[in-house]
């Protein structure tokens, strides 16, 4: 189930600003070679004396096996809080600590199919590599790339280059069309005769994409983003309710069983809750009883 993973003190090779984002290229031998679209890597943040203990997760934007600088990975860093801002300040020659590849990648269709890729904000990161991989397998790729505003729109050129149709949207209309990707998705799916959907972005967007795909009776794969303490499956912080093939919903770890899930299996409406029909909820000892010590414990 799990591939060998690596953890490396790695050199920052280059950085590039794009709107609010920073693209970091870091050397990652042992990791870059294994990455497939949808995998993520994690970084330590804050430096040696850091009071920030937990790693930060980033989709791999691009993995280079044998580039000028050897094996490297690119990540797209959005400034969210102290950790991402620290990372965005790294400069060539600085050392960072990177681990990966983590998570399950997107599954590719066995035979050529028409794929529609839907990206929200930095959610575009794993989809660009995916588009390339899909095209290499003879799939038609269509893209819907959206963001709240132009500063948060990334990868438009790459999306266009690797797709038949590319729709570009911002919520405030500052670049491309005004609106949300989900507004144009039904039309795009229709026109492109889409057979499978891939999405990465905010949870609400993922839910909408999964729903639209389901309505058309087509499969979808969504890459979710849950708070993660470990990123490699040991802590159980990153769970969400996912229905299994057996019809049973379980609280499933998005870091090892995801972050990519079948759209239809994720119970989006119940994310952030433990639904009463979830495996282990009803029969659970102490269920419904006071739990003053919710910390484990």
């Amino acid at each position, binding site marked *: 189930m799990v591939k060998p993973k690596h953890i490396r003190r790695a050199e920052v090779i280059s950085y590039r600003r794009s709107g609010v984002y920073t693209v970091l290229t870091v050397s990652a031998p042992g990791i870059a070679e294994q990455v497939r679209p949808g995998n993520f890597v994690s970084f330590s943040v804050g430096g040696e004396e850091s*009071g920030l203990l937990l790693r930060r997760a980033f989709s791999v934007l691009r993995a280079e096996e044998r580039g000028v600088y050897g094996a490297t990975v690119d990540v797209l860093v959005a400034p969210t809080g102290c950790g991402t801002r620290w990372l965005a300040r790294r400069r060539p020659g600085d050392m960072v600590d990177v681990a990966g590849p983590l998570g399950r990648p997107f599954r590719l269709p066995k035979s050529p199919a028409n794929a529609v890729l839907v990206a929200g904000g930095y959610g575009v990161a794993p989809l660009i590599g995916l588009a390339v991989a899909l095209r290499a397998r003879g799939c038609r790729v269509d893209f819907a790339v959206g963001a709240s505003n132009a500063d948060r729109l990334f990868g438009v050129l790459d999306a266009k280059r690797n797709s038949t149709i590319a729709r570009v949207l911002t919520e405030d209309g500052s670049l491309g069309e005004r609106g949300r990707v989900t507004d144009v998705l039904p039309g795009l799916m229709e026109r492109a005769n889409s057979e499978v959907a891939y999405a990465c972005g905010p949870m609400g967007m993922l839910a909408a994409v999964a729903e639209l795909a389901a309505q058309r009776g087509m499969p979808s794969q969504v890459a979710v983003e849950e708070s993660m303490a*470990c990123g490699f499956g*040991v802590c159980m*912080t990153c769970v969400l309710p996912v229905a299994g093939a057996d019809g049973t919903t379980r609280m499933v770890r998005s870091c090892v069983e995801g972050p990519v899930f079948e759209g239809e299996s994720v119970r989006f409406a119940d994310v952030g809750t433990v639904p009463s029909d979830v495996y282990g909820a009803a029969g659970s000892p*102490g269920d419904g*009883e*006071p*739990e003053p*010590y919710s*910390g484990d414990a």
Partner: protein
Amino acid sequence: MAVDLTTVLAGVEFANPVFTASGCAAAGQELDTFTDVTTLGGVVTKSVMRLPRAGRPTPRMAETASGMLNSIGLQGPGIEAFLANDLPWLLERGARPVVSIAGSSVQEYTELAQALRDVDGVALIEVNISCPNVEDRGHVFACHPASAAAVVSAVRRNSRVPVFAKLSPDVTDIVGIAEAVLTAGANGLSLINTMLGLAIDPGSLRPVLGAVTGGLSGPAIKPVALRCVWQVHAAFPDVPIFGIGGVRTGTDALEFLLAGASAVQVGTALFGDPTALPRIMDELGTALDERGLTRPGEIVGRAHRSPLFVAPEGPDPLGDASLRAAG
């Protein structure tokens, strides 16, 4: 000179004194992709309950200064699936399992101990008593000497291997709780579990955790953990203790041994560095060697005694320097 890290806890021998902490390495499989789990002192498994358990709503974690809060809520497969899948994997792999159990009544702990009684290969049982007692208005077992003792004595009566009781620091008198569980038959103690904490999200204006409060762990709590080990070792110098709380380096491990622990468990540090355990083992070996020591046992509780030996600063670990008396 070679340091021999072999460590004996309540009569059970382990290759070294560095273990995973319960809930921070699942049942070893995922960690094994980074670190060979057979090289560890042992793997303390996530506390298992009698039945499968879905845990608490997300978010289940909040990062804090040099620490984190978690509110997993003991999500797990239940003892049957654990015995069918997790434990056999660990044993086939050749790791040393310490099985942590949790319950919400004395009866549940009893049944867990019984389910483990005839299973081979369990090195120790760790009893996580930081759980609400449904029979006592949800009061946490670990916070009251009588309920803590009731759980431990039930497990002790139903176990063939040594039983360690894992205590909570959130009490007025940890020595009193230790005394109660030792009297009830605990063969050793695990100190400490997480501390109850809270984080607020300044964006939503609400608690970060879905469960509101959570358990604080990591280097932030190390001073409290060391103090608990110190106090309990001072009161019961012969009782083996797992030191737990913020261990991240070999020096941290050394400090716990000096305070009175015979071994350490590493939790939160694994999230930041999944290869932390072998590193800590190495660093501890080097630290002992530099001090002219050959076995961890030689320094257990040493900080309680007047300093007869000082650490030599030069490359002369066994020479006169290491024997000079300090003031």
